């Protein structure tokens, strides 16, 4: 199968920007992505675009892909919007890789964008609930905080996981986000702060929940035929895995793991030909801090039920054996739904190209992204490999 490569990625700041539009934020992300390509990339070479967005607020629900690419002057190219709830961005990257691997395109823009903070509190809660199972789960009175809280309660009941362990995830991710200039909540928080925040949906408190965010992020995916034009140190998309599941938690076989994550992870590892132990760092979907612990388990970083112990041991801290969410994760960096998956790729690109600034890891080779839609109705995992040899020696 032809290879696909990541040659550039960039994002806007994530946060609340009353003076920005979804188009202006996307433009910032796009320009940063273009600027990040080591040898430069002429926008005229872009063959195709895939845009992830949920469309919170409903501003441009139809044709929201062309609405941003035409704004950028990417006139006439095929452009598709991808909607898979919070995994829309990750699936945009997957679609871009598929376009390249199929031979239909050589250079594809995978983007994501969301504006979430310019609508009323009631309205944003309406939109946050649109990706849950609507007829039964939502109408039992839950938004995602409630559904993830149910997963947390079940995990605590089965594995004795504690709220303190959830809080430790928040403390770690804030610590990372404090070194990320793009982060929405780029400040440190103490364990005491995280433990004593107001309850949102027990056992989850405010510090166990990511914020709502505005933001955009873009990645540039190219074919093996053209990669040498853009970089001398290619980053190969070594593994791609994706899976779907019942939209409602109550319809699944388990409440203490996300089977779609497990399947997506297993497929990505198989394609990359590596074991989880080979992963040097990961950006995982910590929309709620229980989700990060589930990701440790579902992605094979630890045994089922050991997620809490893994955070206790500090293994996923920046100086740990497997740093997770060096960007700050959804918790600190922010979670502009459609942009989250591409935003994770931005962090991987920075880490693998040595551009992560104060949070730079030491020479990582494999970086993994894990993006979940809803409470697990969709999941997508990518494994990126920095190729240290010359392009001619590619595997």
């Amino acid at each position, binding site marked *: 199968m032809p290879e696909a490569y990541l040659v550039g990625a960039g994002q806007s700041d994530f946060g609340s920007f009353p003076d920005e539009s979804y188009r202006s934020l996307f433009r910032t992300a796009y320009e940063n992505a273009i600027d990040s390509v080591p040898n430069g990339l002429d926008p005229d070479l872009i063959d195709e675009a895939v845009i992830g967005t949920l469309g919170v607020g*409903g501003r441009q629900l139809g044709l929201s892909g062309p609405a941003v690419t035409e704004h950028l002057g990417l006139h006439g190219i095929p452009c598709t919007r991808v909607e898979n709830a919070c995994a829309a961005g990750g699936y945009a990257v997957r679609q871009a890789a598929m376009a390249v691997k199929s031979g239909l395109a050589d250079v594809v823009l995978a983007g994501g964008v969301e504006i979430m903070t310019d*609508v*009323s*509190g*009631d*309205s944003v*809660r*309406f*939109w946050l*609930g*649109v990706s849950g199972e*609507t*007829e*039964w*789960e*939502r*109408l*039992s*009175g*839950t*938004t995602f*905080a*409630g559904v993830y*809280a*149910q*997963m*947390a*309660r*079940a995990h605590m*009941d089965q594995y004795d996981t504690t709220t303190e362990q959830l809080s430790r995830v928040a403390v770690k991710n804030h610590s990372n986000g404090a070194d990320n200039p793009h982060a929405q909540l780029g400040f440190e928080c103490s364990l005491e702060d995280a433990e004593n925040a*107001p*309850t*949102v*949906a*027990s*056992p*989850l408190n405010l510090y166990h929940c990511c914020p709502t965010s505005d933001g955009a992020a873009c990645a540039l995916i190219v074919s093996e035929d053209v990669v040498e034009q853009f970089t001398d140190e290619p980053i190969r998309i070594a593994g791609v895995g994706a899976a779907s599941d*019942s939209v*409602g*938690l*109550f*319809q699944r076989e388990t*409440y203490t793991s996300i089977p779609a994550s497990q399947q997506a992870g297993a497929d990505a590892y198989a394609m990359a030909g590596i074991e989880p132990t080979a992963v040097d760092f990961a950006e995982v979907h910590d929309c709620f801090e229980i989700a990060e612990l589930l990701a440790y388990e579902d992605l094979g970083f630890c045994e089922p039920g050991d997620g809490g112990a893994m955070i206790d041991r500090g293994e996923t801290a920046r100086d740990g054996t497997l740093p997770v969410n060096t960007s700050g994760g959804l918790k600190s960096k922010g979670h502009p739904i459609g942009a989250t998956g591409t935003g994770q790729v931005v962090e991987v690109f920075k880490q693998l190209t040595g551009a992560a600034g104060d949070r730079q890891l030491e020479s990582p080779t494999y970086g993994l992204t894990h993006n979940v839609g809803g409470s697990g109705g969709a999941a997508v995992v990518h494994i990126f490999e920095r190729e240290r040899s010359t392009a001619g020696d590619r595997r």
Partner: protein
Amino acid sequence: MSGLATIRAAASYTPTFRIDAAAFEQAWGSFDAPGIESKAVPDADEDALTMATEAGRCALTAASIDGEAIVWLGWATTTPPIEAEALTPRLKSMLAIDNQTPSVSVTDSTRAGTQLLREAPADRTALVLVSDCPQGAPDDELGHAGGAGATAFVLAPDGHAPITEANSYESPKPGVRFRQPDETYDHGLDIGQYERSAFIDAIASASESITTADADAVAVQAPNGKRPYRVADTLGVDPARIKRVGTVHELGDTGAASVPLGLTRALAEDCSTIIGASFGGGVGADVLRIECTGAVPVIEATSTEGQLSYAAYLRRREAITTPTIDTGAAHVSVPTWQRSIPQRHRLIAGECPNCDALAFPPSGACPQCRTLVDYEPIDCWTSGTVETVTTINRGGAPPEFAAQQDQQGAFEVAIIALSIDGRSVSLPAQLTASAGVGARVKPVIRHIYTQEGVPRYGVKFQPASVQ
């Protein structure tokens, strides 16, 4: 035969929350509903329809019959949650009574319950539901008095509590008790002697042809805790016979359910001769005489969950909350909701014809064998177990539930496992009170939310600890 019906079984249901007269005295400096010590308060998701359903289910259980045995349904209330739309079709659905069963509802005065008992057929198995939760303005006597309660009677020729005599009286006397269209609060003109004499005269006239003095128990309309005793002399009975079955002191003014609740209490106490004397604005009165020939099965579903503060009471009664703002997204249309009525009202799941697994809701591929099948309906109305649960705090609820949360604060949402013949199926649902993982819960009908002006009802689960 008299052409009057015979009570075969009865049940009552009252909401679990109470507020004391003292809470009103603290708030207002006085409590204006004499003789009431506490009153029942419906929870935010309870109304006359849900209370009637609960009482109805209990009455069917007491009579050891299913809803399909009912061939006539009557519902009485002065507080229907929606007007100019029949709610008996929903009641029939919730109680598994055949859609084609004739039904009537009476809503025009606090006599409604006794009117139905008078008019119910004598020769068939019928169900009479009476439920009410009248409200007055927070600063008047009706507001202080307004309570809540429901009762239900299974009527059948083979019952042991025949209504042997009944009489009514009506006379045009406006202004005693009324409500303007599109208003929540009942009003009276508070013309003391006019109202008192209207009450006494109407009951006296309705009781003229009926023997009352020998009754063991007398259930009298109780807009407050003093008024019923004013007809003790008229009826020739000891006030203790009235007090014996009076619910007003504990539940407040239960409107149309006032006299029927007293009748149910009398049946529960095995009284043999029972009088019911109702009164309603307009004005009118009904007097019934019941002569029991044997014990009547009665279920009284009354438990007390907790005392409310005055502020919590006002929130639950929507006196200080604002309606939900409809912002549109993820809208479940009324036709979509309607298609799920068997699941919402009766927990009808599906049984896979391929592998026998259960599916809820019963649509789409089988959750076990993944085959796209047409399910066999299976009744899953049974107690279940909490698999996992969260408490949704203020701000954490979807906007459809913001009004409920304003009224009652945080609420719990669980995933409930229902087990049928060794097979399990799960659904998400609210709990009516707190329960942990592993707790046993039973299904109840509650108001889920209102959108586009249409109240929607469905299943919640009540922890065994409050049953």
